[in-house]
């Protein structure tokens, strides 16, 4: 049984000296799918990407591109023969070539007419049709990154790899560029792996999200499932703010101070509550808390609250009722939200 998925990595092992960079890693990407690879720095995500791109080799395991074995731990296909598009954090445009020559670099075997047509097409895809004759140093940071994208897409790669492509840009530009990238990938039906350390970016861009930690893939799933049903507290806390409450199990029913918990499968689990699951209330249904710290976040206030038993939780508060440290009040679970049982980490 041989699949023709754009990427399939199995049993990947990679060691740098004493550090195990990848430990028995497996990923796969389906046609036209975007896989976001996310994790704290040093978790091995960039190493995995470089291995897929042919810039590093595996110690053992295998990498397949469109069904073709390209690395089996002893031999690897060099990057120039993999037909993969690469985009790095630092745009890596060739500074001595114009934008057009940069974009045409990967298709220099084609006829001049073909090259010109393809370059025009690519510049249109990244919405920069008028910049062809400039040099990289004459472009803004965002424009450079879009040209790098156009250059990587020009040879019609079956797969694109992005290594923190937006990390060096400011926030507004990042959101804008993200849309350009997703649109371009969708328009060309190109599969992609995107490495990022930014959880929100991973959730926004990925059809699926793979979360890595210490050289292992901890969970791979759709953005909403990794966010709402994390496999453990690491994934839960890495993707966004979360509080974990101890679960009492009595006679087959499980509950926390906030109420019942469904789906508990083991006695070690705790209940994950995200700040938006909680609300301050005047009703009797809530539990008594005291505000211990506050932080203004623009759209809302962010309050850390302490229970009488010393447990702390984080909750959102409306800007209409700014919380203050020392306030006493009541909080409860927002209607329709649930506490999610998760496994603790090691």
């Amino acid at each position, binding site marked *: 049984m041989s699949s023709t998925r754009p990427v399939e990595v199995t049993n990947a092992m990679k060691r740098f000296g004493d550090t195990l960079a990848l430990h028995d890693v497996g990923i796969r990407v389906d046609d036209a799918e975007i896989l976001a690879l996310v994790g704290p720095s040093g978790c091995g995500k960039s190493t995995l990407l470089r291995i897929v791109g042919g810039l590093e080799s595996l110690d053992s395991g295998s990498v397949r591109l469109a069904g073709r074995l390209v690395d089996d731990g002893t031999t690897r296909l060099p990057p120039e023969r993999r*037909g993969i*598009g*690469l985009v*790095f954090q*630092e745009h*890596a445009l*060739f500074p001595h070539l114009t934008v057009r020559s940069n974009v045409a*670099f990967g298709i220099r075997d084609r006829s001049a007419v073909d090259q010109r047509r393809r370059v025009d097409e690519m510049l249109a895809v990244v919405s920069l049709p008028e910049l062809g004759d400039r040099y990289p140093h004459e472009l803004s940071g965002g424009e450079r990154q879009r040209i790098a994208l156009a250059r990587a897409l020009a040879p019609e790669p079956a797969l694109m790899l992005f290594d923190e492509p937006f990390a060096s840009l400011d926030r507004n530009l990042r959101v804008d560029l993200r849309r350009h990238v997703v649109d371009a990938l969708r328009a060309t039906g190109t599969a992609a792996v995107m490495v990022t350390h930014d959880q929100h970016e991973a959730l926004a861009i990925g059809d699926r999200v793979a979360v890595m930690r210490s050289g*292992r893939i901890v969970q*791979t799933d759709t953005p909403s499932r990794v966010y709402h049903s994390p496999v453990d507290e690491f994934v839960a806390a890495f993707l966004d703010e979360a509080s974990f409450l101890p679960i009492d199990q009595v006679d087959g029913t499980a509950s926390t101070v906030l109420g019942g918990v469904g789906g508990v499968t083991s006695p070690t689990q705790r209940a994950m509550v995200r700040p938006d699951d909680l609300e301050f209330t005047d009703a009797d249904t809530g539990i008594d808390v005291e505000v211990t710290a506050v932080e203004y976040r623009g759209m809302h206030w962010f309050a850390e609250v302490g229970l009488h038993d010393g447990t702390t939780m984080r909750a959102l508060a409306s800007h209409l009722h700014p919380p203050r440290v020392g306030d006493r009040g009541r909080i409860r679970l927002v209607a329709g939200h649930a506490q999610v049982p998760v496994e603790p980490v090691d």
Partner: protein
Amino acid sequence: MTITPDAPTDVGRDTSDSVDNVERQLGDRASRAGWPLLAIIVAVLVVVPVSLLAASILDPNVDVWRQQWRTRLPGQLVDTAVLLAGVAVGSLVLGCSLAWLVSAYRFPGSRWFAWLLIAPLAMPSYVLGFVTLSVIGFTGPIQGWWRDVFGDDAWFPPVRSMGGAIVVFTLVLYPYVFLLARAALSEQAGSAYDVARSLGAGPLEAARRVVLPLLRPALAAGVSIVMMETLTDFATVQYFGIDTVSVGVFRIWRGTFDRDAASEFATLVLVVALLVIGLERALRGRARFGEAGGAGARLERRRLTGGKAIGATAACSLVLLLSFGLPTAQLVSWAIDEATGPRGTPLVDRFVEFLQNSVILAVLTSTVCVIVALGVTNARRFSPGRTTGVATRMTAIGYAVPGPVVAIGVVLALVQLDDVLEWFGLGLPGVVATGSIVGLVYAYSVRFLAPGLNTIEAGLDQVPEAVTSSARSLGARPGTVARRIHLPLSRASILTGAVLVAVDSVKELPIALLLRPIGFDTLPVWTYNLASESRFEQAALPAIAIIVVALVPVAVLSRQLSLSADRR
């Protein structure tokens, strides 16, 4: 769809591929082994001469050593040690104080002195040596005037002596210490000095307790270069009647043409060089030069006024005049005398011939060095790893090995090669092994590969890894990437590297003296020969030519220095 951590590997796993199959799919494995192979070959070519020479001591000629030990050897060891120590201390004191002066204070001309003071780098020690001897030596005009005034028995410090040699070497070699100390001062010392002052240390205490320790790695590096340059010389020391181990090699080589004895004796020079390297390591301690790095503030330069300002300006001017200004002026005046005198014309003809020889050597050497350096640095980029890393470091050792050692090692290597080829029934023409331009270029390249390599490597380091990776992912093979991306992007540093190597070749004297084919004289050899016969007026023109050529890298260096100063 979900790959859980429990079963990460059962996804479409296909074990039907044998390694055979992979090999077939991967195809060009052999061609990619070419890059590391290239680096290894270069490293071997560089290391072989030195190792052959070192190996010659394994089978020592006891008679030669015994005879040397009974005659000159003890004196040579003492002279070598005293000379190296004297020059080390001298350049340390002079280089350090000048660096501190131009980095910590402002006085009339201080900005100019900051880079003018490196000009003596362009003055070969043998040139300053013969000018000094002829002007203030016993027969020179100054001592003549001295005797006229104070009588024939008046005491005058002996010029043709160990002390005189130490002063001459110090005057031309202090810039190495000055340069490195100044760089370290401007890059690192500012904030440390300020913090020390804010913690209650006075200026001198801050300098002694904070700045000096900070400078230690730079000073160790500078002093070790100075000592190597002193050790490699055997022209200047001969003018001053000093008998070092390098002179010993030269004497055995020229006197007896006994290759084995000379090579054994040259191992002694190698041992001294290793001692110098060991000394540098020890002085540097665990610190690495430039490691503290970072963008520390530079020293806030204090304005000197009145007598102090005049004193500072006078001190800098005096050093510059003695080491560069006055000797150059003297050379120019001799050259004019010679050109306008009755014997001028025939010399001009031969000047062109020797200049041509020097240029041919320089061009060949820098071409070889640039091509080799390009190959090695690209090999490192395309297949990073231990093999290429170690090979690259090995190719730089020639610079740390004194010229006489390289020269004799190359002869041993060529003889060895000749034997091997003969065994195959080929055989080199006899001259190649014993004395030909091939041997000269080989030896020059081994010795001067390091400056070329470092410059070109620094240039390629400016090209981000990601640019190389991008080009390859766009379908370009390593050779194409090297040609279309790396080459155009590091053109400036390739040019600089070529110039540095060429200038070093033009200045080189010891290797040329030992290896030149008969009748093939270079500018330094010619200068040396004429000066040895006290024909100073005739030696002036080639000496000036060497200085002019050597000023090129000095100018490049000062430009870089002033550029980096502007950026701050």
